[in-house]
């Protein structure tokens, strides 16, 4: 189990969901995010997020609980899994196949 | 705090605002909380009204008042808009009506339309130009009881002549 926290936000200009990476960049892919394993590290992520909000790059930054599963990072909560991955239904412009965010967070 | 008039003029506020306990100064125009009436003052009398006061209950004491200050505790709290309209349209108050508290430049047009004519500016948040410019942003209104001088509501203009 590699449970920790990832910092997420919406990019101000287009609203797209982004995640903070180890190099202080914002990625649209949660798998590229930096996973803070300890409260102190998570606190540092939050602080960095606030700085990015002050410079108007992102808005609404917050921490989510997630865990590393191989190369993937999977949020604990269904809401965050859908937010990270996209709608779970086949809509126009969807990735094919649609996200399987309802898959269990913790591999059996 | 600088004061903006609805014609765009900026000036210093010459009024002295008193709290519940402050002594009345020997000279000057003062703004006092409503609860302190009746009160003898050296110059002109201004009144600051609480956000939850039903202004239609105001009595004849209003006739000696030259300034009424209505407060916005938050820009999202819109009660003072209704208080202003009631003062203008129901109580027929004709003195200066001032908006104070948490204001946004983008709300100035609404405030003018319901009858405010001066504003306590928070220039730490927005530059003065933003405030004066905001008065020009939206000038057309469907509102029936427009208080903006020199302008008529759409419905009047539409059916004129």
């Amino acid at each position: 189990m590699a449970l920790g926290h990832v910092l997420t936000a919406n990019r101000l200009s287009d609203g797209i969901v982004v995640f903070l990476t180890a190099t202080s960049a914002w990625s649209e892919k949660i798998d590229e995010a930096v996973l803070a394993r300890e409260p102190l590290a998570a606190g540092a992520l939050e602080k960095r997020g606030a700085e990015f909000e002050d410079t108007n790059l992102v808005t609404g930054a917050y921490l989510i609980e997630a865990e590393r599963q191989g190369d993937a990072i999977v949020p604990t909560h269904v809401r965050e899994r859908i937010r990270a991955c996209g709608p779970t239904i086949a809509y126009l412009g969807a990735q094919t196949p649609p996200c399987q965010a309802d898959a269990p967070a913790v591999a059996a | 705090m600088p004061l903006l008039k609805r014609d765009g003029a900026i000036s210093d506020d010459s009024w002295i605002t008193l709290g519940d306990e402050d002594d009345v100064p020997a000279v000057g125009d003062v703004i006092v909380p409503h609860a302190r009436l009746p009160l003898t003052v050296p110059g002109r009398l201004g009144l600051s009204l609480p956000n939850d006061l039903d202004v239609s209950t105001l009595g004849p004491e209003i006739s000696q008042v030259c300034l009424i200050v209505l407060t916005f505790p938050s820009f999202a709290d819109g009660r003072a808009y209704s208080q202003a309209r009631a003062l203008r349209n129901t109580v027929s108050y004709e003195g200066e009506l001032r908006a104070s508290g948490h204001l946004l430049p983008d709300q100035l047009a609404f405030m003018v339309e319901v009858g405010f004519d001066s504003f306590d500016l928070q220039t730490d948040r927005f530059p003065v130009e933003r405030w004066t410019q905001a008065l020009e942003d939206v000038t057309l209104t469907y509102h029936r009881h427009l208080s903006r001088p020199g302008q008529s509501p759409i419905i009047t203009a539409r059916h004129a002549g």
Partner: protein
Amino acid sequence: MYRYDEFDQAFVDQRVEQFRSQTSRRLSGELTEEEFKPLRLMNGLYLQLHGYMLRVAIPYGTLSAVQMRALAEISEKYDKGYGHFTTRQNIQFNWPKLEDTPDLLADLAKVEMHAIQTSGNCIRNVTADHWAGVAADELADPRPVAELIRQWSSLHPEFSFLPRKFKVAVTGAPADRAAVKLHDIGLRLHLNEAGERGWEVIVGGGQGRTPMVGVTVRDFLPEEELLGYLEAIMRVYNLFGRRDNKYKARIKILIHETGAEEFSRLVEEEYARAPRPSVEIERKELDRISAYFAPPAYESLSAVEPELERRKLEDPEFARWVRTNVGAHRVAGYGIVNISLKPIGGIPGDATAEQMRTIADLAERFSHAEIRVSHHQNLVLPDVKLADLYDLWTVLAVNGMGEANIGLLGDIISCPGLDYCALATARSIPIAQSISRQFSDPQRLEEIGPLRVNISGCINACGHHHVGHIGILGLEKKGKEFYQVTLGGHSGTDASIGGVLGKGFSEDEIAGAVETIVDTYLDIREDGESFLDCVRRAGTPPFKEALYAPA
């Protein structure tokens, strides 16, 4: 339909430029998110789960073919090529960029549309009977009054920062298709013995956390007094509505806590003392607006169309669609075509740009270029000659819009739920899809008869689950979605709020639970008894028994 004059156009254009300035000030950082939020919400721009969402107003659900085509184009230019028609007759785009939104709004303004007050604590887009002007049972078209209210409420300086959002619906017919008892203010038209118009004013209905059926405060308000009276209601609400708790801030709570009689007294007192708009000018304005809604030039046709009867005999699928989807028109030889946006297994209310263009073409070809959006998330072509129905249906069918399920179990109302919405606690669309697949046999749907299934993904009830004959509410517990079922809700003239059945169901169980409820109904229904009537007669026990009794 209504067309902007130079004042309306200048008003909307000014607003677009104001938002352009606000957006650039937000992008530059002059405005904080907290300060910008109410400004963008007043222009219909939300920040949702995956990004920004723009809700465009379709006033009282009426739009032209030209406007529909513009919506299609906007969906391709600024979004992913589709839109979602909502339970309040609006359309939502799910993927616009903040930086593009001012241009998007400018494109809307070119076709006399806007997104003003589709969100925020203000008077929202006014809704109306989607059959307004054409329904056989209607007394008069309510849309002139709806347009009057649209203009009056647009950027109303006094009522733009209310305690909470405020929704108005109007109907001109005795059969309530606009849910007027479930709005903050519902207006229903009546005629007196002299044939004069008056409006019944219903206040304090609503759904959300605390569903309530509204109360009538005036039985017959003369039309010219409408705006003055509405202002009195709004002022009482603005001054006395609760601002300490957003869940208790709607007008229904004020009325509940004050008492309907005392509330009514406060309104009457305010109405008596406040200055009113002059009755003469209000009459003039209503006459001016009404002229835009003059009925089109109908042909003089026979009520029975032999060509239609022949086609119905030839093609049972077409005959079924006519039975389920075509409503009674007030003019002989015409029908009201209800286009289902609920294909089997589809996303309720979604339409692609291509479908929007198809509808626009069909409206021009068959229905005086006018289209309606219903709060059931379907579209309506209001003025179709019976002789044209077959040609129209053929085009709809090949474009995925020929489903014969209006008002039946397949016609499921669903909010976007957790697939899109930041407030949702559970997904709604996949639930709608699984129920829709479970009941895919059109013959069976017809046998079951009128049955509304409404699904909301959270307690805010945008999917109107409280008034679903079967209502489904998506909730979340310990990170897992589950679904609570209510029975017996209804949004018509005899509106009622549904009652909770019992323990919730998982995503996998819910379609089966609906199946059990429907089987129970088929089992116990009396001759000709609808689902709703059956629930009202038998109550919930037989359904509870079937769902929860140990096997």
